[in-house]
């Protein structure tokens, strides 16, 4: 359960101060599926950083399950990320020198579990995205769609409450796009996640049950009862 109240983020660009976010109020319930869209530079990514505990707002509150992320130290934010939030990125962001299996394991490293358990859980996660037999391949040896599936396995292996996806299909062609959206949707349902996705893709946006649009740091939310 997310509650954002008056979230404001200022960046200084030279002498100019940019309002990346300008008093955002937003509530996201557990198990919700929210799609965020908007023009480039409108503040989508900034909002995702705030929700993902990657950065703190200049003003306002971001309450995740009763804890205000805006007031947490860097170390506490790191802990929140490691336990509660899974990320999927546009360019996959896999470590190029590590195998698929090892990439998935990196998400479990901060949780301090035994190597054996870590390996088992990572292997299970890869099987769940249909890449069980590619565990020992390097990212460079896989297609874009496969790489993004490894990234999804990495995001979900720690069983987070929240899955954040930043343009997860942005670097993929059409057939891959559907494949990834299918996987994400399946995972959302299976894990009972709160799923927040930033996208440019209007086809995906149309199907979203709840669509937030960010323009010049302001947000408008549209409920789409039909597809829910």
């Amino acid at each position, binding site marked *: 359960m997310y509650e954002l109240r008056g979230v404001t983020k200022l960046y200084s660009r030279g002498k100019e101060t940019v309002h990346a976010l300008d008093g955002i109020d937003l509530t996201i319930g557990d198990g919700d599926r929210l799609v965020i869209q908007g023009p480039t530079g409108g503040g989508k990514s900034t909002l995702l950083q705030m929700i993902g505990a990657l950065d703190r707002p200049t003003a306002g509150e971001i309450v995740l399950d009763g804890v205000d992320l805006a007031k947490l130290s860097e170390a506490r934010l*790191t802990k929140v990320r490691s336990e509660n939030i899974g990320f999927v990125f546009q360019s996959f962001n896999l470590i190029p020198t590590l195998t698929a299996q090892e990439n998935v394991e990196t998400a479990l490293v*901060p949780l301090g579990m035994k190597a054996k358990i870590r390996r088992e859980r990572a292997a299970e996660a890869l099987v769940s995205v249909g890449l069980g037999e590619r565990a020992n391949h390097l990212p460079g040896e896989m297609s874009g769609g496969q790489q993004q599936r490894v990234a999804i396995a990495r995001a979900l292996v720690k069983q987070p409450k929240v899955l954040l996806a930043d343009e997860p299909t942005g670097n993929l062609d059409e057939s891959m796009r559907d494949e990834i959206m299918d996987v994400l949707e399946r995972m959302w349902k299976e894990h009972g996640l709160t799923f927040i996705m930033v996208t440019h893709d209007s086809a995906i946006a149309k199907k979203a049950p709840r669509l937030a649009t960010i323009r010049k740091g302001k947000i408008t939310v549209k409920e789409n009862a039909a597809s829910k």
Partner: protein
Amino acid sequence: MFFTYLRRELRRRRKAALVVASGLALGIALVIVVNSVSSGMGKAQDKVLQSLYGLGTDMTVTKAATATAGASQQPRFQFDANNNDSSTTQSSDRVMVQGFTTLASTTVTKVAGQKGVSDAVGGLSLNVVKVDGQFTRGQFQQNQGSGTEGGGGNRGGGTGAPQGEVTGGGANFNINSYSVYGTDVTKPALGPLTSSKITSGRTFTTAEANSKVVVADSAYAKTKKLKVGSTVTIKSVKYKVIGIATATSGDAAANLYIPLTQAQTLSGDKNKVTTIYVKASDSKQISAVKKTIQGNVSGTTVTTSADLADTVSGSLSTASSLATSVGKWLSIAVLIAAFLVAGLLTSSAVSRRVREFGTLKALGWKSGRVTRQVVGEAVVNGLVGGVLGIALGLAGAYVVTAISPTLSASLGSTAAGGRAGGGPGGGGGGFGGGRQAAAKTLDVALTAPVNATTIALAVGLAVAGGLIAGAFGGWRASRLRPADALRRVE
């Protein structure tokens, strides 16, 4: 995970790692070569000094310089001319104390009793000049009147009335000069004789404190055709050759070695010594011991190896100063450059991996864990560089040793001028003013021994290089924000 990640990174980014490592390797190799060459220089100098001092001598004590020594003690020879037609050979030996100054034997005990002195032994260095030959009286040819008598051959003309002249007188003689060292046979472990090896016969026994026996230097023995069992006569005293000694490096300290008491008797210096050879209990405390002796035993000059080393000149000293100055600075400069390059390369490698490290932070990796990963990679690079550098350095040192260029060392040339006390052995002013005091030159082959300290230094430098590079990169990595994971462009 730390090691898996580390291993994978180093294996898959081999080239970049190798560039950093070879930079460090070059610096480290240079340090090893310079270090081992300088220690080789030190060894060469030690060898030179050893030939004067003998093994284990840390310093020598001689009488402090006094102005009075000089002409009055110059050797004089007096011969009476022989009668007509006589072919009798006359001979005279002059035994002089080298440097003309002596210390009392009691000083040896006094020096030995000083703090920090492990052992002290006195020795008497003598120069013997032997003049022998025939001195024929001139014949007085009477022209008019009567002559009284002819003058001595060496004293010029006759003194008689000018009615005749002296003809046919003359002298035919040889001068033979050699050095004799009176050694304390009760302390065979210290003194100049230790720098020679007995190659034939035997050395003195402790019971031969006053025996008429002699050990001859092999070079001198060769020219004089001396063998074990031969007899040497010094100032009409016959000595039996019991052994032949060969100098292990450079020239021998003396031509003949005899028991100290015998030497003292020969020169008439009972209970006197010219030089005291001192061994310090701790070789690191030499300058302190020097001070103690100079303070407590008055009228002495203490010369340490270091003092003597200052008088070494020639290509050895040139190369030595080159190795210590140019070599040292060059290796420091290369090391600093290598450290900087390693640091900058590591730092730029981190910049290229901004998104990777940002992603790890977004996944919940603590900043410290990311930094540790970067530092770990840099330290391994440093160690690889260290291994390469040590291999390269050892190869370099081996090449120097294999070629072993010959360096010449001139010793004591500065002492030839005025120091009455003289350097021990080599530099002392002897007969004929500066002739014997002239520089003693010897050739020493340069080696480049690599010792454990040098290797330890190299390993230390490698780790330091890795840490410096890691500090650059780690600092960079620690400042990355987790939000960098969302960067669109690499």
